[in-house]
């Protein structure tokens, strides 16, 4: 019984940590946007990195993905999906961006 209560506490704490972390990152993003304005690439890069950080926080604390052996398969799946996504998104942007430049001579 105690073991179960202990596990419950641990799993709940994990969720709360994930929530707290995500909340902080969200607030940081909007604070930066509010404070510095959203115009420069520098600000946007910061926002993007914070978004990436939040993705990782949620993957680890909500979806329980980490480098433990037992969840390695899921990590592999995510990494492979990320690879495919990168290929198709970057490829699309590269190709269509290039076509746009060649058409409009921007």
């Amino acid at each position, binding site marked *: 019984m105690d073991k179960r209560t202990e596990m419950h506490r641990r799993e709940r704490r994990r969720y709360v940590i994930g929530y707290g972390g995500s909340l902080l990152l969200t607030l940081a993003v909007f604070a930066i946007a509010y404070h510095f304005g959203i115009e420069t690439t520098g600000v946007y890069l910061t926002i993007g990195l914070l978004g990436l950080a939040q*993705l990782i926080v949620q993957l680890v604390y909500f979806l329980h993905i980490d480098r433990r052996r037992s969840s390695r398969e899921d990590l592999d799946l995510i990494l492979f999906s990320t690879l495919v996504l990168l290929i198709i998104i970057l490829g699309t942007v590269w190709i269509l961006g290039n076509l746009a430049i060649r058409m409009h001579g921007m």
Partner: protein
Amino acid sequence: MKRAPTHSYPGINLGERHASAHKASEVVTFGFWVFLMSDLVYFGLMFATYITMIDAQAGGPGPHELFDLKSIFAQTLILLTSSLTVGLAMLALKYNLPRARIVLWFGVTLALGVSFLVLEMRDFLAMAEKGGIPQRSGFLSAYYGLVPLHGLHVAAGCLWLIVLGVQLRVMGMTDLVISRVMRLALFWHFLDLIWIGIITIVYFGGLTYG
């Protein structure tokens, strides 16, 4: 693989108490996870399409006229909180907490999901009033192809939540229903991940480069 796995798929695992369900739900949860990856490609391509169409405003209203960051901020907080509460609902089920607690977290999650959708609809209506309708430009088409797609997923999640609530009542806390709740939680977390992409790329990206 031969060791009894204590953690064999993403999200909360049923663990030892539900040994039989654990085995059965391992396969189906892995399958659901694969489905989510396939769904992720849908979103990925819509993101790519949006990125390539940021400039395609065709003289119509752009991000600066249309996006309401306050509302986006509220939606973000709501969705994030619902991601926590859906997890708590699942923990309540897993650890056999009193029924009231389970109902509470289910109810809170549903309420948050619905209010997210209401705020999003309000945004769309406000945008439409300023001429921001999908028929206006390629940029707006890409916006309305992506953000409501996420909204549709949230709506499907809400419907699923309701059905599972009914099933909990009718069928009881069977292993099958609990395993379904876990998959719903996965789905819900996944939607929160997509939402991070949406605020970063659609809203902030749109405002920076649009």
